[in-house]
């Protein structure tokens, strides 16, 4: 049988198996190799909600999806072309993600009687046969047997040998997608530097998987995906949470400000605290507080002391911080509040994604308590956005709410390393200590500059002793004031100060399309990839649709209103019940349409494209 070599523009593969099967590692190795081959790509891990659900059950299935291509890739893909399943439960949980006619690579050893029953298949069901009957191409490999065969000479115990099953499968896939093995081989050598016999075994399994695929001719086609036209530069793969960690370290370096993170663990934000806790030598101090209120309280205290105070959490934790965020709006100190959103309400679906804390970010406080709001659109984007959030907080003495979500927090994509020298400077508004001179003017802690920003007077500075608090303060002096007119004035000033940030952010640009026309799609946050794909596909089909994706949400870019008014229709896709669309409708009185889903998952490109077509037609 001869093997056809096929060129592909893009491919999506989904690896799935039991939590113990090393799926995430397999996925990330495939990702590295793919990246090194010059493809553009996007990935998403799909962990089980339980720490360790019973082996073999659907609840225990761990997944990893990678979408790569020779063209620009924006999402991990709605559906996959190839589904790799290590057991029956993995098939059960994931078949719905496979495109009609797609390829299933199944470890037949995971489809025994016990596996089927653990996966809750009926006793008489034959899922592999059923899949074939439904038109899928099923490649059956007894991975366990083949791996044991491959490694029988190593003398390793069976348990250890079985742990190399994933490398055997990876070898098969590397053959199928015409990939070199060397990057993974190097990785294995590094990883098991102290256990060379394990490294060797894994490498052998990988090689043997590759050879197995050639020798057994289980595939009739083999694929190759050319390099994508990617901007020049040095890249690495990064998750959203890691990008935030790196950005904060960068801020500490560039601003010369000590950074203080007060946080309390919560899914899916914990990795930020975890990552920063190892960066003490970058001038970052982390404090794991007793709860979210103490976390933000400590950050506020640190900001008063001259650090940049940051706090990280997810929706329910942010709710707990509401009162303290209100305090920060009164104190007018720098503060960054990172909300890695998850599916709500309440505990909701903590490991799933949603964008439903936008209105909370805007309005979730007592009284008129304006904060700035900014959002990240992808894992890599988290770097720049976090940097921006810190810059705004410091330069405008204001709490900044940074919104990401579970999807970009855990998802990874290639990130072009920034040039450190080109990162914007960050310029704190420190008040100078008073000397002994006669001409020192009295210190006025709430005297504002042209941008309505008050000075940052840090303890230790002679002559700047002052007291601040949550009671309304008199303009300029900062003393307590119950005066009605003063309250009106201060309320307006705090709001105005937030609005003036608009002068220090870039104008909104277009991601796709012309600056006027039939339909404008407006996105924010993690839906970027899905919208970008849907719009570009629609444009390829000739539809008159444009796309802007908002990073700065409060204040909006100054040119936003003009952009919106240049289109007949505006569509706002969101993973919530239409929150940004509410804000835009209120602000601009435009008949904005909302496309929304709350399924704990990213928007699918297909559905969204349909909606776009419909609106362009209508």
């Amino acid at each position, binding site marked *: 049988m001869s093997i056809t070599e096929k060129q592909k523009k893009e491919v999506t593969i989904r690896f799935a198996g039991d939590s113990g099967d090393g799926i995430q590692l397999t996925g990330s190795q495939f990702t*590295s190799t793919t*990246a090194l081959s*010059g493809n553009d790509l996007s990935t998403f891990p799909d962990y089980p909600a339980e720490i360790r659900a019973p082996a073999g059950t659907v609840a225990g299935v761990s997944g990893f999806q990678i979408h790569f291509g020779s063209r620009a890739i924006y999402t991990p893909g709605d559906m996959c072309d190839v589904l790799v399943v290590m057991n029956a439960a993995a098939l059960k949980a994931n078949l719905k993600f496979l495109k009609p006619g797609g390829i299933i690579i199944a470890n037949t050893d995971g489809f025994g009687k016990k596996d089927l029953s653990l996966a809750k298949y009926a006793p008489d069901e034959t899922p592999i046969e059923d899949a074939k009957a439904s038109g899928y191409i099923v490649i059956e490999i007894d991975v366990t047997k083949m791996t044991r065969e491959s490694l029988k000479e190593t003398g390793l115990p069976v348990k250890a040998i079985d742990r190399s099953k994933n490398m055997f499968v990876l070898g098969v896939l590397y053959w199928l997608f015409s990939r070199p093995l060397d990057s993974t081989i190097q*990785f294995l050598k590094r990883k098991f530097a102290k256990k060379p016999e394990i490294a060797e075994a894994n490498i052998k399994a990988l090689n043997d998987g590759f050879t197995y695929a050639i020798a057994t001719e289980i595939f009739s086609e083999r694929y190759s995906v050319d390099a994508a036209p990617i901007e*020049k*530069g*040095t*890249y*690495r*793969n*990064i998750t959203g949470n890691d990008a935030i960690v*790196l950005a904060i*370290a*960068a801020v500490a*370096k560039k601003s010369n400000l*000590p950074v*203080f993170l007060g946080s309390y663990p919560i899914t899916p934000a914990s990795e930020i605290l975890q990552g920063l806790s190892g*960066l*003490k*030598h*970058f001038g970052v*101090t982390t404090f794991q*507080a*007793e*709860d979210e*209120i*103490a976390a*933000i*309280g*400590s*950050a*506020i*205290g*640190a900001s*008063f*002391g001259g*650090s940049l*105070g940051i706090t990280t959490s997810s929706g329910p934790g942010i709710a707990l911080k509401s009162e*303290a965020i209100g*305090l920060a709006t009164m104190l007018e100190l720098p503060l960054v509040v990172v909300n890695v959103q998850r599916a709500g309400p309440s505990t909701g679906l903590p490991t799933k994604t949603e964008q439903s804390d936008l209105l909370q970010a805007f309005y979730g406080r007592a009284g008129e308590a304006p904060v700035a709001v900014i959002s990240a659109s992808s894992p890599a984007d988290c770097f720049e956005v976090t940097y921006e959030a810190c810059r705004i907080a410091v330069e405008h003495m204001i709490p900044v709410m940074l919104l990401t979500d579970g999807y970009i927090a855990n998802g990874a994509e290639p990130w072009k*390393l920034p040039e450190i020298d080109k990162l914007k400077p960050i310029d704190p508004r420190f008040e100078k200590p*008073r000397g002994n001179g006669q001409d*020192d003017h009295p*210190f*006025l*802690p709430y005297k504002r500059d042209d941008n309505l920003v008050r000075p940052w007077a840090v*303890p*230790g500075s002679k*002559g700047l*002793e*002052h*007291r*601040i*608090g*949550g009671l309304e303060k008199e303009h*300029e*002096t*900062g*003393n*307590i004031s119950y005066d009605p007119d003063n309250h009106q004035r201060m309320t307006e000033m705090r709001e105005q100060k937030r609005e003036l940030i608009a002068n220090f952010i870039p104008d909104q640009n277009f991601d796709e399309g012309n600056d006027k026309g039939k339909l404008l799609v407006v996105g924010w946050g993690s839906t970027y990839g899905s919208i970008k794909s849907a719009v570009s596909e629609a444009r390829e089909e000739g539809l008159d649709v444009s796309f802007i994706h908002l990073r700065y949400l409060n204040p909006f870019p100054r040119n936003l209103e003009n952009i919106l008014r240049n289109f007949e229709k505006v569509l706002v896709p969101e993973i919530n019940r239409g929150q940004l669309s509410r804000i835009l409708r209120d602000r601009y009185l435009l008949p904005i349409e909302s496309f929304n889903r709350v399924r704990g998952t990213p928007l699918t490109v297909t559905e969204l494209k349909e909606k776009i077509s419909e609106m362009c037609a209508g």
Partner: protein
Amino acid sequence: MSTQKTVNGTKTNGNLQAKDFASDQEVRWCPGCGDYTILKQVQTLMPKMGVDPENIVFVAGIGCSSRFPYYMNTYGIHGIHGRAPAIATGLKVSRPDLSVWVVTGDGDALSIGGNHIIHLLRRNLDINVLLFNNEIYGLTKGQYSPTSPQGLVTKTSPSGSVDNPFNPLSLALGANGSFIARAMDRDPKHLQYLLERTWQHKGTSFLEIYQNCIVFNDNAFGPYTDKSMRDSTSLYLEDGKPLLFGKDEAFGIRLDGCRPEIADLAGGKWSQDDLWIHDEKDRNKAWLLTTLFDDNTQAGKLPRPFGVIYAEDRPTYEQLIQDQITASFERYGEGNLENLLTGEETWTVK
């Protein structure tokens, strides 16, 4: 428009006096409120510390007592209800060089702020906590607090509070507090001494100060402050000295195993040598001292101790963090941003 008063730049603390630590804000407690004395004693302490005013920060929550920072001519934060320990923790961890004080009330510290207080105590940051205990919510006009005695009739307990109150000192000891002491507004000299001790202790110092709320809970501490009763109800502790109380120190406390009892020194049965000698470092006996008081309003019962009940040297939280920071720099050198961003694996597109 008046401006916030700042200390004249030319003076260093050595030249300063108590009044230099008074801000220009009018003090607005009720006439006769115990808070005034405490403010005065704190202002009196300040010059003794030899710390420049710009290196001192008072942090408070919400309550009558929590207005305190406004009246101190130092840096200050009037925060939100119950969260002063959290704010102070962030400040002290990031600025170990500052002298940080938390002023709080029984509601602020033990009701809404209970969690932060106990975590502060176990962590042992070098922060001085002054707990103004008036056994009532003053600012909100007279509801019972977690230290109000059972049965107290207040606006929210018309038939008497059913809450078993906290013993703040037992709670602090149970939370691993390293310095635990009690004072009263009506004995300013002793208060001054304890403020000094509070400040001197390296670690979280927890000073409970009985403070009279003349409006909503007047005379709550009458038994310990009234001339007619205080001799037999108040026990002043001194390290290394026997536990003596009563008129002319006619009584002492001895220990029968772990059970404290009153020794009448006049009776001839007991002499000072039989008495319990106070040891500030003995944590077991500190527990006995914190729980000594339960029945003390009744004659013949054990008196309530004032003074330093427990003082333990152990590393402060901020020191341990500083040590880790130092170790981190020693191990990795000053963080290299480029390396960090690059990470473990990169590829280059040309």
